[in-house]
């Protein structure tokens, strides 16, 4: 009973954490909330996304502990961790390189190229994380 609960929480927290990041990435790309300053969307979205991420991380660790050996040897688990690391580095790069100068393009519909590249990378990496996480459950 406990395992399904933890696994369910892991997946539903994913929708909050990553779902909200997707909305922010779409704003970076000018595909949602075009009239809204990017900083405002970011400020609204991030606290909830981080909360979702915390739940995902805790439940993820618990899931890992229940089947550490099996998961560790799983190729898709390893790819998933690698993609997570890359998604983190991508976010860090954005935070260091573009965040301090956000005011300059805050209301622009088309954000700087570098920002859009970060947004696309974020989307691609998270899709990869989700696909690897789901595929882990299958015996391939």
């Amino acid at each position, binding site marked *: 009973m406990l395992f399904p609960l933890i696994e369910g929480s892991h997946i539903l927290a994913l929708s909050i954490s990553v*779902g909200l990041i997707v909305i922010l990435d779409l704003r970076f790309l000018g595909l949602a909330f075009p009239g809204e300053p990017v900083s405002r969307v970011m400020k609204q979205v991030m606290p909830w996304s981080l909360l979702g991420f915390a739940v995902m991380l805790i439940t993820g660790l618990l899931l890992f502990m229940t089947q550490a050996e099996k998961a560790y040897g799983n190729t898709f688990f390893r790819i998933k961790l690698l993609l997570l690391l890359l998604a983190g580095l991508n976010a860090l790069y954005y935070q260091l390189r573009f965040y301090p100068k956000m005011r300059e393009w805050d209301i622009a519909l088309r954000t700087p190229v570098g920002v859009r590249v970060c947004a696309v990378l974020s989307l691609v990496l998270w899709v990869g994380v989700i*696909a690897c996480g789901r595929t882990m459950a299958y015996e391939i």
Partner: protein
Amino acid sequence: MSLEKFFQWCYQSPVLGILRDSSYAMPIIQSIHLLGLTILLGTTVMLNLRLLGIGMRQLPLSDVAQQLWPWAFGALLLMISSGILVFIPDPVRYVNSGPFQLKMALLALAILYHFTIFRRVTRKKLSPRSPLVNAIVAFFSLTLWFSVGWAARAIAFFK
């Protein structure tokens, strides 16, 4: 053709058999399904945060609803189409599953609720409703959509 015969035909169809038995087809379809869930629930959570008055407060409610709708609707279509691909290669397994039946009932309710009450409240431009009404509307929206997700997850664990 009766429903039972149709399910039998699905199970025996060579094309659907490939979907069922190939080691990569189901993980890919399930990943697409999960991606749809991420976007659908993400947009639903965000719109409900606005409805509750705890997020996106500077933007009018109807604008938030309008901006998010194409993505939510696209995600719903993605979920339904990938969901059908999960279902038809092995229909009998799902039809006989309690959690699956519950999921379908909740899904029907969630969609009905969205297109009637929820849409009417979130798209209203003038004279917003009282915070209490909004909170009740948001509560049912979140509860319904997340229950669909929980029932879905239960398919893998319970009969």
